[in-house]
């Protein structure tokens, strides 16, 4: 069982038979000074003169196995901060057609709204200059001060039409569920710019990740993130976000997805009983989810029995839902190249490797 950690990272095993679109590749800010060219002098002085060194979070512990797969840490800076290594370890060997960058710089941990706006803008300008303009295979998720939806909308208006940005990144942990009317200015901006909302593992909003407070171990937070995704999905559908913006697309990134069938059964049942409370939700929630939501394949919370895995995939009720991802440089226990894709019919594996994402992100 534990040998899973000792094996080579899957992407190092050589060329794949088909091109892929990698929907979850991390671009980490190497150190706060890298943002200085893109930050107003006010914030540069802050960092130079005080203990404040930019936002902080703990959802990828620096030396935990989840954060850096073997061989992914560059000579300088954290794993995921080197474009050169990304090319060597993912883009070239995997024949990546496109890779969508995710930067988990914890803008949402900044309660100072001016800081949140300044750092979000700096990260986006840094992504354009240091990543998008240097490799045409890259696309990116723009970051926003999601805790202040009006200001997030303004940042989307500022950079959302840059052709390199295909989605807006929202950390799954938040102070309020994303379906809430507080966030409707944010959804309106995402829809108006025809971007995808990419809801991603993690977040540093200050409130606990469990409905019963703070868990002790990181492993609990890692495992329990799936339930936060479930709650966000429940909120977004129940509040009628997809009824208000019928073209809206949402990708859940690093959410896991084997929980989805049972979640849809329960949600559909509740809707049958309680739909008078949310009369704008016109169809069973599962129909909204299959139409408006996609899921990256990692982490793969798969049953050990392959037949059961195929049953779960059939229970999803659609072949369009899953998007290929390496989650580079992060590491998870299961390897889709061994544990998922070879098990599937060839046409479904092709859809997951590239076709679903090409249609979803219009690449």
């Amino acid at each position, binding site marked *: 069982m534990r040998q899973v950690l000792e094996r080579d990272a899957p992407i190092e095993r050589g060329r794949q038979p088909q091109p892929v679109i990698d929907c979850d590749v991390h671009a980490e800010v190497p150190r706060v000074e890298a943002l200085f060219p893109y930050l107003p002098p006010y914030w540069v002085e802050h960092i130079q003169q005080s203990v404040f060194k930019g936002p902080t979070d703990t959802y990828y512990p620096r030396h935990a196995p989840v954060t850096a797969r073997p061989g992914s840490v560059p000579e300088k800076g954290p794993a995921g901060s080197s474009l050169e290594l990304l090319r060597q370890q993912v883009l070239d060997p995997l024949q990546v057609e496109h890779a969508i960058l995710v930067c988990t710089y914890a803008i949402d941990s900044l309660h100072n709204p001016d800081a949140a706006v300044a750092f979000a803008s700096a990260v986006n300008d840094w992504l354009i200059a240091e990543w998008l303009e240097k490799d045409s295979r890259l696309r990116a998720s723009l970051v926003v001060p999601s805790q202040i939806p009006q200001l997030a909308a303004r940042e989307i208006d500022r950079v959302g039409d840059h052709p390199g940005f295909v989605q807006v990144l929202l950390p799954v942990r938040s102070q309020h569920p994303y379906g809430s009317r507080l966030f409707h200015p944010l959804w309106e901006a995402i829809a108006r710019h025809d971007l995808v909302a990419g809801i991603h593992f993690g977040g540093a909003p200050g409130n606990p990740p*469990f409905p*019963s407070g703070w868990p002790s171990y990181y492993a609990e937070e890692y495992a329990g993130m*799936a*339930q936060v995704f479930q709650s966000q999905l*429940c909120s977004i559908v129940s*509040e009628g976000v997809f009824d208000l913006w019928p073209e809206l697309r949402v990708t859940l990134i690093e959410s896991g997805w084997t929980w989805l069938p049972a979640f849809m059964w329960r949600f559909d*049942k509740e809707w049958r009983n309680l*739909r008078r409370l949310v009369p704008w939700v016109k169809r069973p929630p599962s129909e909204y989810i299959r139409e408006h939501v996609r899921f990256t394949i990692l982490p793969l919370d798969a049953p050990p029995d392959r037949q059961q895995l195929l049953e779960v995939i059939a229970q999803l009720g659609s072949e369009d839902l899953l998007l290929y991802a390496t989650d580079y440089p992060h590491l*998870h226990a299961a390897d889709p190249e061994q544990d998922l894709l070879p098990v599937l019919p060839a046409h479904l594996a092709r859809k997951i490797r590239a076709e679903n994402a090409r249609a979803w992100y219009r690449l």
Partner: protein
Amino acid sequence: MVQTQPRTATQERTRPAIIDCDVHNEWNSQEELYPYLSQRWREHLQTFGMRGPSGATYPRFQNRRTDSTPPSGRKPGSDVAFLAQQLLDEWNIVYGILNPLTGVGRQLIPEFDAALATAVNDWMVAEWLDKEPRLRASIIIPFEYPDLAVAEIKRRVGDTRFVQVQFSGRPAEPMGRRKYWPIYEACVEYGLAVMSHAFGSGGHPITGCGWPSFYIEDHVGPAQSMQANLISLVFEGVFERFPELRVVSVENGFGWAPSLMWRLDTTYKLLYRELPHLKRLPSEYIREHVWFSTQPIEEPHRPEYFLQLLRHMGGADRLVFATDYPHWDWDSPDGALPARLPDEVKQQIFFDNAKALYRL
């Protein structure tokens, strides 16, 4: 062992014996508790009432089954004779386990919480258990104050009609935290199960991302809350520390259990270095230590998915039947389980599993 009521020949033929693991009894008025409270806490209850973490009110249409108001005019669930007739007689329920939802466990004054717990348990003995031999009950405990909770557990030792202790769905800390270990230690010592019933806020929102807006979200939420509690119980090593502990998840659903076990196993494979206190795969602890009540029953749109779900759970031996009487979303024994479920599986869920779990 208490004798069950004689059943009619018709019921013998047509209805299987059932153990109902979630029956909600209520008082018609809080004055019913007064005889069991000291003057100090009786006056407090009269003057200040119950005060727990507040700030979550969801407008809703549904409340109790519309036919559950007793002819006596008392509140639904508050008339033991009518409950026995409408629920136990009607459905051949040979044991019904009372889980009153009282606000105990959520009182901000620890001593008041403990006094209320004692009063509720005394009231259950006098007004329910002594009057209807088919009833069993959960011990109501002030679980946020474990020393007081253990004292209440000890007060009930010897009355075998109490089969478990009751937690809310969302304690103030995740259920595996060491704060609660003295309660688990007492439960193992006295042969009691630990039950967590859906709902009931210990001060945190029902999601890991804040308060939702609508009751439908609040009603989906227990599935996520209980998963968080099980993650905590497993990864904190509670089942290593208390190898005889039995945990019962009530009214939280169970469709999520397989994917949770898969996720915990893959998480453990990745992060085992943080968890040296675990000796087995997380799914093994859940399979061995955790039971799930059926209501609200899972309703996949294709019947074969229900059978797949049971296989993915590793069998049906940890499912126990519950009606949730008299609440609006109760499950009827006639309609809840899928028709194509084999009779021996129905027998397990209706009776055998709960009999073994509660040693009835």
